[in-house]
Protein backbone atom coordinates (compact mmCIF):
# COMPACT_ATOMS: atom_id res chain seq x y z
CA UNK A 1 0.00 0.00 0.00
CA UNK A 2 1.49 3.35 -0.94
CA UNK A 3 2.03 5.73 1.95
CA UNK A 4 0.30 8.97 1.12
CA UNK A 5 2.33 10.80 3.71
CA UNK A 6 5.65 9.76 2.19
CA UNK A 7 5.48 12.36 -0.53
CA UNK A 8 6.83 15.61 0.90
CA UNK A 9 5.05 18.72 -0.25
CA UNK A 10 7.05 21.92 -0.56
CA UNK A 11 6.90 24.12 2.55
CA UNK A 12 5.83 27.32 0.82
CA UNK A 13 2.45 27.70 -0.83
CA UNK A 14 4.13 29.61 -3.65
CA UNK A 15 6.17 26.54 -4.58
CA UNK A 16 3.02 24.40 -4.52
CA UNK A 17 1.58 26.40 -7.41
CA UNK A 18 -1.43 27.57 -5.37
CA UNK A 19 -3.08 30.49 -7.19
CA UNK A 20 -2.72 33.82 -5.41
CA UNK A 21 -0.04 32.57 -3.00
CA UNK A 22 2.04 35.14 -1.18
CA UNK A 23 5.78 35.22 -0.80
CA UNK A 24 6.83 33.28 2.35
CA UNK A 25 3.31 31.93 3.02
CA UNK A 26 3.31 28.45 4.58
CA UNK A 27 -0.32 27.97 5.69
CA UNK A 28 -2.91 27.55 2.96
CA UNK A 29 -6.00 29.71 3.23
CA UNK A 30 -8.15 26.59 3.51
CA UNK A 31 -6.22 25.44 6.56
CA UNK A 32 -6.27 28.93 8.01
CA UNK A 33 -10.06 29.13 7.61
CA UNK A 34 -10.49 25.68 9.15
CA UNK A 35 -8.38 26.61 12.16
CA UNK A 36 -10.22 29.93 12.55
CA UNK A 37 -13.60 28.19 12.47
CA UNK A 38 -12.47 25.63 15.04
CA UNK A 39 -11.08 28.35 17.29
CA UNK A 40 -14.27 30.36 17.07
CA UNK A 41 -16.29 27.23 17.90
CA UNK A 42 -14.05 26.42 20.86
CA UNK A 43 -14.34 29.97 22.22
CA UNK A 44 -18.12 29.85 21.76
CA UNK A 45 -18.40 26.49 23.56
CA UNK A 46 -16.08 27.61 26.37
CA UNK A 47 -18.13 30.78 26.79
CA UNK A 48 -21.08 28.78 28.09
CA UNK A 49 -19.35 25.62 29.37
CA UNK A 50 -16.77 27.22 31.69
CA UNK A 51 -19.17 29.56 33.52
CA UNK A 52 -21.62 26.67 33.96
CA UNK A 53 -18.88 24.44 35.37
CA UNK A 54 -17.70 27.16 37.73
CA UNK A 55 -21.31 27.75 38.74
CA UNK A 56 -21.72 24.06 39.65
CA UNK A 57 -18.33 23.78 41.40
CA UNK A 58 -18.54 27.15 43.19
CA UNK A 59 -19.83 25.83 46.55
CA UNK A 60 -16.59 23.85 47.03
CA UNK A 61 -14.67 27.12 47.34
CA UNK A 62 -17.24 29.15 49.22
CA UNK A 63 -16.35 29.90 52.84
CA UNK A 64 -19.17 29.44 55.30
CA UNK A 65 -19.87 32.34 57.67
CA UNK A 66 -19.02 31.76 61.34
CA UNK A 67 -22.22 31.42 63.39
CA UNK A 68 -22.42 31.46 67.17
CA UNK A 69 -25.60 30.18 68.71
CA UNK A 70 -26.64 30.33 72.35
CA UNK A 71 -27.70 26.91 73.69
CA UNK A 72 -28.57 27.69 77.30
CA UNK A 73 -27.42 29.33 80.56
CA UNK A 74 -24.11 28.27 82.08
CA UNK A 75 -25.69 26.57 85.10
CA UNK A 76 -27.56 24.17 82.81
CA UNK A 77 -24.37 22.15 82.25
CA UNK A 78 -22.40 20.01 84.71
CA UNK A 79 -18.83 18.71 84.76
CA UNK A 80 -19.58 15.03 84.76
CA UNK A 81 -22.49 14.45 82.42
CA UNK A 82 -23.51 15.44 78.93
CA UNK A 83 -26.58 17.58 78.22
CA UNK A 84 -27.93 17.22 74.65
CA UNK A 85 -28.73 20.54 72.95
CA UNK A 86 -30.07 21.24 69.46
CA UNK A 87 -27.87 23.38 67.25
CA UNK A 88 -28.96 24.88 63.92
CA UNK A 89 -26.30 24.33 61.26
CA UNK A 90 -28.42 25.55 58.36
CA UNK A 91 -31.40 27.79 59.14
CA UNK A 92 -32.92 27.53 55.65
CA UNK A 93 -34.02 23.88 55.52
CA UNK A 94 -36.05 23.36 58.67
CA UNK A 95 -35.51 20.20 60.70
CA UNK A 96 -32.94 18.82 58.25
CA UNK A 97 -30.55 21.67 59.12
CA UNK A 98 -30.45 20.89 62.86
CA UNK A 99 -28.14 18.61 64.77
CA UNK A 100 -27.74 17.41 68.35
CA UNK A 101 -24.63 18.42 70.30
CA UNK A 102 -23.60 16.97 73.66
CA UNK A 103 -22.28 19.68 75.99
CA UNK A 104 -20.62 19.52 79.40
CA UNK A 105 -18.43 21.80 81.47
CA UNK A 106 -14.67 21.55 81.22
CA UNK A 107 -13.38 19.06 83.82
CA UNK A 108 -9.68 19.35 84.65
CA UNK A 109 -9.44 15.77 85.88
CA UNK A 110 -10.75 14.22 82.62
CA UNK A 111 -9.83 16.78 79.97
CA UNK A 112 -6.10 16.44 80.46
CA UNK A 113 -5.16 16.77 76.82
CA UNK A 114 -3.18 19.95 76.19
CA UNK A 115 -5.42 20.97 73.31
CA UNK A 116 -8.44 21.25 75.59
CA UNK A 117 -6.94 23.82 77.96
CA UNK A 118 -8.72 27.21 77.99
CA UNK A 119 -11.93 25.60 76.71
CA UNK A 120 -14.79 26.54 79.04
CA UNK A 121 -17.13 23.85 77.73
CA UNK A 122 -16.70 20.62 75.80
CA UNK A 123 -19.24 20.32 72.95
CA UNK A 124 -19.21 16.97 71.16
CA UNK A 125 -20.98 16.58 67.81
CA UNK A 126 -23.44 13.70 67.52
CA UNK A 127 -22.31 13.10 63.92
CA UNK A 128 -20.62 9.69 63.83
CA UNK A 129 -17.09 9.82 62.42
CA UNK A 130 -17.77 6.68 60.39
CA UNK A 131 -20.46 7.75 57.91
CA UNK A 132 -22.39 10.49 59.67
CA UNK A 133 -25.26 8.76 61.48
CA UNK A 134 -26.38 10.37 64.76
CA UNK A 135 -24.69 8.91 67.85
CA UNK A 136 -26.37 8.86 71.26
CA UNK A 137 -24.83 9.26 74.74
CA UNK A 138 -25.74 6.16 76.75
CA UNK A 139 -25.53 6.94 80.45
CA UNK A 140 -25.31 3.36 81.71
CA UNK A 141 -22.42 2.49 79.41
CA UNK A 142 -20.81 5.94 79.60
CA UNK A 143 -20.28 5.67 75.88
CA UNK A 144 -21.46 7.36 72.68
CA UNK A 145 -23.03 4.62 70.56
CA UNK A 146 -23.94 4.82 66.87
CA UNK A 147 -27.06 2.91 65.75
CA UNK A 148 -25.97 2.36 62.14
CA UNK A 149 -22.77 0.32 62.16
CA UNK A 150 -21.88 0.00 65.84
CA UNK A 151 -19.35 2.77 66.38
CA UNK A 152 -18.56 3.28 70.10
CA UNK A 153 -16.81 6.32 71.63
CA UNK A 154 -15.71 7.12 75.21
CA UNK A 155 -16.45 10.13 77.38
CA UNK A 156 -14.03 12.32 75.43
CA UNK A 157 -15.42 11.18 72.09
CA UNK A 158 -12.44 8.96 71.31
CA UNK A 159 -13.16 5.78 69.38
CA UNK A 160 -13.16 2.64 71.51
CA UNK A 161 -14.85 0.25 69.07
CA UNK A 162 -16.45 -0.20 65.67
CA UNK A 163 -15.58 1.25 62.27
CA UNK A 164 -15.07 5.01 62.95
CA UNK A 165 -11.70 6.34 61.80
CA UNK A 166 -11.29 9.23 64.24
CA UNK A 167 -12.91 10.70 67.39
CA UNK A 168 -16.20 12.57 67.30
CA UNK A 169 -16.06 16.15 66.00
CA UNK A 170 -16.36 19.05 68.43
CA UNK A 171 -17.62 22.62 68.37
CA UNK A 172 -15.90 25.74 69.60
CA UNK A 173 -17.52 27.09 72.77
CA UNK A 174 -17.58 30.44 74.56
CA UNK A 175 -19.63 32.18 77.24
CA UNK A 176 -21.34 35.40 76.25
CA UNK A 177 -22.03 38.44 78.45
CA UNK A 178 -25.47 37.12 79.44
CA UNK A 179 -23.80 34.03 80.99
CA UNK A 180 -25.03 31.79 78.20
CA UNK A 181 -23.02 29.05 76.55
CA UNK A 182 -22.55 29.66 72.83
CA UNK A 183 -21.48 27.10 70.27
CA UNK A 184 -19.44 28.14 67.25
CA UNK A 185 -18.06 26.33 64.23
CA UNK A 186 -17.30 22.64 64.06
CA UNK A 187 -13.75 21.25 64.18
CA UNK A 188 -12.38 17.75 63.82
CA UNK A 189 -9.79 16.08 66.03
CA UNK A 190 -7.36 13.23 65.55
CA UNK A 191 -6.88 10.40 68.03
CA UNK A 192 -4.64 12.66 70.20
CA UNK A 193 -7.44 15.29 70.21
CA UNK A 194 -5.29 17.64 68.12
CA UNK A 195 -7.54 20.09 66.29
CA UNK A 196 -8.07 20.21 62.54
CA UNK A 197 -10.42 22.16 60.32
CA UNK A 198 -13.72 20.28 59.94
CA UNK A 199 -13.57 17.12 57.84
CA UNK A 200 -16.40 14.92 56.66
CA UNK A 201 -17.03 11.60 58.40
CA UNK A 202 -15.02 8.64 57.20
CA UNK A 203 -11.86 10.70 56.70
CA UNK A 204 -9.03 9.70 59.06
CA UNK A 205 -6.71 12.41 60.43
CA UNK A 206 -3.88 10.29 61.89
CA UNK A 207 -0.66 9.73 59.95
CA UNK A 208 -1.03 10.70 56.31
CA UNK A 209 -4.81 10.97 56.71
CA UNK A 210 -4.67 14.76 57.06
CA UNK A 211 -2.92 14.97 53.67
CA UNK A 212 -5.10 12.39 51.88
CA UNK A 213 -8.20 14.24 53.04
CA UNK A 214 -7.27 17.91 52.69
CA UNK A 215 -9.10 20.73 54.39
CA UNK A 216 -11.77 22.33 52.23
CA UNK A 217 -10.62 25.58 50.57
CA UNK A 218 -13.31 27.67 52.24
CA UNK A 219 -12.53 26.49 55.80
CA UNK A 220 -11.67 29.27 58.19
CA UNK A 221 -9.15 29.08 61.01
CA UNK A 222 -10.50 30.41 64.25
Amino acid at each position, binding site marked *: MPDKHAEQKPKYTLERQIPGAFEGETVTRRRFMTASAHTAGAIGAAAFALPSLGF*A*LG*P*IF*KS*TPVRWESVGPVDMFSEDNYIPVVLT*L*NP*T*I*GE*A*GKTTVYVRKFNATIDTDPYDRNTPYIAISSRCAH*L*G*CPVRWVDAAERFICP*CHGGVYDLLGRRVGGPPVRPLDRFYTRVNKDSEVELGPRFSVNSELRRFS*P*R*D*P*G*EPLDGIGQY*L*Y*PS*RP*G*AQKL
Partner: protein
Amino acid sequence: MPKLPKLPAPPVPSALQAPPPRPGDGNGRAAPADHAKHAGRTLVDWVDERTSLSGGVRWMLFRKVPKGTNWFYTLGSATMFVFLSQAVTGVFLAMYYRPDPSGGAYESIRYVTNDVFLGQFVRGMHKWGSSVMVILVFLHMGRTFFFGAYKYPRELNWVIGVVLLILTMVMSFTGYLLPFDQRAYWATIVGVNINGTGPLIGPYLSDFLRGGPEFGATTLSRFYAIHMLLVPGLLAALIGAHLYLVAKLGTTAPPWLKAEEPPELREAEV
Protein backbone atom coordinates in the same frame (compact mmCIF):
# COMPACT_ATOMS: atom_id res chain seq x y z
CA MET B 1 -23.47 -2.82 0.99
CA PRO B 2 -25.15 -6.25 0.98
CA LYS B 3 -28.69 -6.47 -0.25
CA LEU B 4 -31.11 -5.98 2.62
CA PRO B 5 -33.56 -8.82 3.23
CA LYS B 6 -37.20 -8.21 2.36
CA LEU B 7 -39.89 -7.97 4.99
CA PRO B 8 -41.56 -11.36 5.46
CA ALA B 9 -45.09 -11.69 3.99
CA PRO B 10 -47.83 -11.79 6.62
CA PRO B 11 -49.01 -15.37 7.27
CA VAL B 12 -52.46 -15.07 5.66
CA PRO B 13 -53.79 -18.11 3.76
CA SER B 14 -53.92 -17.44 0.03
CA ALA B 15 -57.69 -18.02 -0.05
CA LEU B 16 -58.20 -15.08 2.29
CA GLN B 17 -55.84 -12.70 0.57
CA ALA B 18 -57.41 -9.98 -1.49
CA PRO B 19 -56.95 -10.55 -5.23
CA PRO B 20 -54.56 -8.11 -6.85
CA PRO B 21 -56.38 -5.19 -8.53
CA ARG B 22 -57.05 -5.80 -12.20
CA PRO B 23 -56.45 -3.17 -14.79
CA GLY B 24 -59.76 -1.59 -15.80
CA ASP B 25 -61.38 -1.92 -12.36
CA GLY B 26 -62.95 1.36 -11.30
CA ASN B 27 -62.30 2.88 -14.65
CA GLY B 28 -58.56 2.54 -14.16
CA ARG B 29 -58.50 5.06 -11.32
CA ALA B 30 -58.19 4.43 -7.60
CA ALA B 31 -61.48 4.91 -5.78
CA PRO B 32 -61.53 6.99 -2.55
CA ALA B 33 -61.88 3.71 -0.65
CA ASP B 34 -58.63 2.52 -2.21
CA HIS B 35 -56.88 5.71 -1.13
CA ALA B 36 -58.13 5.21 2.40
CA LYS B 37 -56.99 1.58 2.36
CA HIS B 38 -53.46 2.55 1.38
CA ALA B 39 -53.23 5.69 3.52
CA GLY B 40 -50.83 4.09 6.00
CA ARG B 41 -48.54 2.77 3.30
CA THR B 42 -48.67 6.06 1.45
CA LEU B 43 -47.66 7.95 4.57
CA VAL B 44 -44.76 5.60 5.33
CA ASP B 45 -43.64 5.83 1.71
CA TRP B 46 -43.85 9.62 1.82
CA VAL B 47 -41.57 9.75 4.87
CA ASP B 48 -39.24 7.07 3.57
CA GLU B 49 -38.81 8.78 0.21
CA ARG B 50 -37.61 11.88 2.05
CA THR B 51 -35.51 10.26 4.79
CA SER B 52 -34.51 6.73 3.64
CA LEU B 53 -35.21 5.65 7.21
CA SER B 54 -36.53 2.22 6.26
CA GLY B 55 -33.05 0.99 5.38
CA GLY B 56 -31.82 1.87 8.86
CA VAL B 57 -34.83 0.31 10.50
CA ARG B 58 -34.36 -2.90 8.55
CA TRP B 59 -30.62 -2.85 9.36
CA MET B 60 -31.45 -2.52 13.05
CA LEU B 61 -34.37 -4.93 13.36
CA PHE B 62 -33.95 -7.65 10.68
CA ARG B 63 -30.51 -8.93 11.58
CA LYS B 64 -29.18 -12.44 11.31
CA VAL B 65 -28.82 -13.96 14.77
CA PRO B 66 -26.69 -16.99 15.55
CA LYS B 67 -28.12 -20.44 16.09
CA GLY B 68 -28.81 -21.13 19.75
CA THR B 69 -30.01 -17.62 20.60
CA ASN B 70 -32.19 -18.04 23.67
CA TRP B 71 -34.13 -16.21 26.38
CA PHE B 72 -30.93 -15.01 28.09
CA TYR B 73 -30.43 -12.74 25.09
CA THR B 74 -33.55 -10.75 26.03
CA LEU B 75 -32.08 -9.37 29.27
CA GLY B 76 -30.62 -6.34 27.50
CA SER B 77 -33.88 -5.32 25.87
CA ALA B 78 -35.67 -6.02 29.16
CA THR B 79 -33.33 -3.53 30.83
CA MET B 80 -34.02 -0.98 28.11
CA PHE B 81 -37.74 -1.51 28.50
CA VAL B 82 -37.48 -0.80 32.25
CA PHE B 83 -35.43 2.30 31.44
CA LEU B 84 -38.20 3.52 29.13
CA SER B 85 -40.77 2.79 31.84
CA GLN B 86 -38.66 4.76 34.35
CA ALA B 87 -38.37 7.63 31.87
CA VAL B 88 -42.11 7.80 31.22
CA THR B 89 -43.22 7.45 34.86
CA GLY B 90 -40.45 9.87 35.89
CA VAL B 91 -41.64 12.54 33.48
CA PHE B 92 -45.15 12.32 34.89
CA LEU B 93 -43.93 12.29 38.50
CA ALA B 94 -42.00 15.49 37.69
CA MET B 95 -45.35 17.14 36.92
CA TYR B 96 -46.23 16.92 40.64
CA TYR B 97 -42.84 16.89 42.39
CA ARG B 98 -41.47 20.02 44.10
CA PRO B 99 -37.76 19.96 45.06
CA ASP B 100 -38.35 22.15 48.11
CA PRO B 101 -36.29 21.07 51.15
CA SER B 102 -38.34 22.94 53.77
CA GLY B 103 -41.21 20.47 53.63
CA GLY B 104 -42.52 20.94 50.08
CA ALA B 105 -40.73 17.93 48.64
CA TYR B 106 -42.10 15.55 51.23
CA GLU B 107 -45.56 17.13 50.96
CA SER B 108 -45.61 16.80 47.15
CA ILE B 109 -44.67 13.11 47.37
CA ARG B 110 -47.35 12.60 50.03
CA TYR B 111 -49.83 14.31 47.70
CA VAL B 112 -48.84 12.08 44.76
CA THR B 113 -49.09 8.94 46.89
CA ASN B 114 -52.34 9.67 48.72
CA ASP B 115 -54.39 12.10 46.66
CA VAL B 116 -53.53 11.98 42.95
CA PHE B 117 -55.57 9.56 40.82
CA LEU B 118 -53.30 6.55 40.12
CA GLY B 119 -50.47 8.49 41.83
CA GLN B 120 -49.53 5.64 44.13
CA PHE B 121 -49.46 3.28 41.16
CA VAL B 122 -47.24 5.46 38.97
CA ARG B 123 -44.92 6.27 41.86
CA GLY B 124 -44.84 2.59 42.78
CA MET B 125 -43.85 1.66 39.23
CA HIS B 126 -41.03 4.21 39.36
CA LYS B 127 -39.86 3.13 42.79
CA TRP B 128 -39.93 -0.63 42.22
CA GLY B 129 -38.81 -0.21 38.61
CA SER B 130 -35.54 1.25 39.83
CA SER B 131 -34.77 -1.95 41.73
CA VAL B 132 -35.87 -4.06 38.77
CA MET B 133 -33.55 -2.07 36.50
CA VAL B 134 -30.53 -2.61 38.77
CA ILE B 135 -31.27 -6.35 38.99
CA LEU B 136 -31.72 -6.67 35.20
CA VAL B 137 -28.51 -4.70 34.54
CA PHE B 138 -26.56 -7.17 36.67
CA LEU B 139 -28.24 -10.21 35.07
CA HIS B 140 -27.48 -8.78 31.61
CA MET B 141 -23.88 -8.20 32.67
CA GLY B 142 -23.67 -11.77 33.99
CA ARG B 143 -25.04 -13.13 30.69
CA THR B 144 -22.44 -11.15 28.75
CA PHE B 145 -19.67 -12.35 31.04
CA PHE B 146 -20.56 -16.03 31.16
CA PHE B 147 -21.27 -16.24 27.42
CA GLY B 148 -17.92 -14.58 26.69
CA ALA B 149 -19.75 -11.88 24.73
CA TYR B 150 -17.34 -9.17 25.93
CA LYS B 151 -14.45 -10.52 23.81
CA TYR B 152 -13.06 -9.08 20.58
CA PRO B 153 -14.56 -7.15 18.81
CA ARG B 154 -17.12 -6.26 21.51
CA GLU B 155 -14.81 -4.83 24.22
CA LEU B 156 -15.98 -1.26 23.64
CA ASN B 157 -19.57 -2.34 24.17
CA TRP B 158 -18.55 -3.87 27.51
CA VAL B 159 -16.93 -0.55 28.49
CA ILE B 160 -20.05 1.41 27.52
CA GLY B 161 -22.08 -1.13 29.49
CA VAL B 162 -19.96 -0.53 32.61
CA VAL B 163 -20.54 3.22 32.27
CA LEU B 164 -24.26 2.52 31.91
CA LEU B 165 -24.11 0.40 35.10
CA ILE B 166 -22.44 3.25 37.00
CA LEU B 167 -24.97 5.77 35.69
CA THR B 168 -27.81 3.45 36.75
CA MET B 169 -26.35 3.40 40.26
CA VAL B 170 -26.08 7.21 40.20
CA MET B 171 -29.77 7.33 39.25
CA SER B 172 -30.67 5.04 42.16
CA PHE B 173 -28.58 7.10 44.58
CA THR B 174 -29.87 10.52 43.52
CA GLY B 175 -33.47 9.34 43.28
CA TYR B 176 -33.35 7.99 46.81
CA LEU B 177 -33.12 11.51 48.29
CA LEU B 178 -36.09 12.98 46.46
CA PRO B 179 -38.95 11.77 48.78
CA PHE B 180 -37.03 13.70 51.48
CA ASP B 181 -38.17 11.58 54.40
CA GLN B 182 -35.98 10.31 57.24
CA ARG B 183 -34.73 7.33 55.27
CA ALA B 184 -33.88 9.48 52.24
CA TYR B 185 -32.07 12.04 54.39
CA TRP B 186 -29.89 9.59 56.32
CA ALA B 187 -29.20 7.38 53.31
CA THR B 188 -27.93 10.43 51.47
CA ILE B 189 -25.80 11.55 54.44
CA VAL B 190 -24.21 8.08 54.54
CA GLY B 191 -23.87 7.83 50.74
CA VAL B 192 -22.21 11.23 50.37
CA ASN B 193 -19.84 10.41 53.22
CA ILE B 194 -18.89 7.13 51.53
CA ASN B 195 -18.00 9.30 48.52
CA GLY B 196 -15.86 11.45 50.80
CA THR B 197 -13.71 8.51 51.87
CA GLY B 198 -12.05 8.48 48.45
CA PRO B 199 -8.60 9.98 49.03
CA LEU B 200 -7.70 13.43 47.65
CA ILE B 201 -10.73 14.07 45.47
CA GLY B 202 -13.30 12.45 47.78
CA PRO B 203 -13.81 15.54 49.99
CA TYR B 204 -14.24 17.78 46.95
CA LEU B 205 -16.70 15.37 45.34
CA SER B 206 -18.75 15.37 48.54
CA ASP B 207 -18.80 19.17 48.61
CA PHE B 208 -19.89 19.21 44.97
CA LEU B 209 -22.74 16.77 45.66
CA ARG B 210 -23.97 18.61 48.75
CA GLY B 211 -23.38 22.03 47.26
CA GLY B 212 -21.32 23.02 50.32
CA PRO B 213 -19.76 21.63 53.48
CA GLU B 214 -23.09 20.69 55.08
CA PHE B 215 -26.26 19.11 53.77
CA GLY B 216 -28.32 22.11 52.68
CA ALA B 217 -31.05 23.52 50.52
CA THR B 218 -28.97 23.12 47.35
CA THR B 219 -28.34 19.43 47.98
CA LEU B 220 -31.89 18.47 47.07
CA SER B 221 -32.08 20.61 43.93
CA ARG B 222 -28.67 19.34 42.84
CA PHE B 223 -29.75 15.73 43.26
CA TYR B 224 -32.98 16.53 41.44
CA ALA B 225 -31.16 18.09 38.47
CA ILE B 226 -28.68 15.21 38.30
CA HIS B 227 -31.51 12.68 38.61
CA MET B 228 -33.85 14.09 35.98
CA LEU B 229 -31.65 16.02 33.52
CA LEU B 230 -27.97 15.15 33.56
CA VAL B 231 -27.89 11.38 33.96
CA PRO B 232 -31.01 10.43 31.92
CA GLY B 233 -29.57 12.30 28.90
CA LEU B 234 -26.26 10.51 29.26
CA LEU B 235 -28.05 7.18 29.76
CA ALA B 236 -30.18 7.61 26.64
CA ALA B 237 -27.19 8.62 24.51
CA LEU B 238 -25.06 5.73 25.73
CA ILE B 239 -27.92 3.23 25.28
CA GLY B 240 -28.05 4.45 21.66
CA ALA B 241 -24.32 3.82 21.24
CA HIS B 242 -24.68 0.43 22.97
CA LEU B 243 -27.48 -0.61 20.60
CA TYR B 244 -25.64 0.66 17.53
CA LEU B 245 -22.65 -1.53 18.38
CA VAL B 246 -24.92 -4.53 19.03
CA ALA B 247 -26.50 -4.11 15.58
CA LYS B 248 -23.16 -3.47 13.89
CA LEU B 249 -21.23 -6.34 15.48
CA GLY B 250 -24.08 -8.82 15.85
CA THR B 251 -24.67 -11.06 18.85
CA THR B 252 -22.54 -14.01 19.87
CA ALA B 253 -23.57 -17.63 19.73
CA PRO B 254 -23.86 -19.30 23.14
CA PRO B 255 -20.56 -20.84 24.22
CA TRP B 256 -21.89 -24.42 24.20
CA LEU B 257 -22.48 -24.23 20.45
CA LYS B 258 -19.55 -25.40 18.31
CA ALA B 259 -18.96 -23.70 14.99
CA GLU B 260 -19.87 -25.90 12.05
CA GLU B 261 -16.83 -26.76 9.99
CA PRO B 262 -17.09 -25.67 6.40
CA PRO B 263 -17.49 -28.76 4.17
CA GLU B 264 -14.27 -28.10 2.26
CA LEU B 265 -12.29 -28.44 5.51
CA ARG B 266 -13.80 -31.72 6.65
CA GLU B 267 -11.12 -34.32 7.07
CA ALA B 268 -12.92 -37.07 5.17
CA GLU B 269 -13.18 -34.97 2.07
CA VAL B 270 -9.65 -33.57 2.04
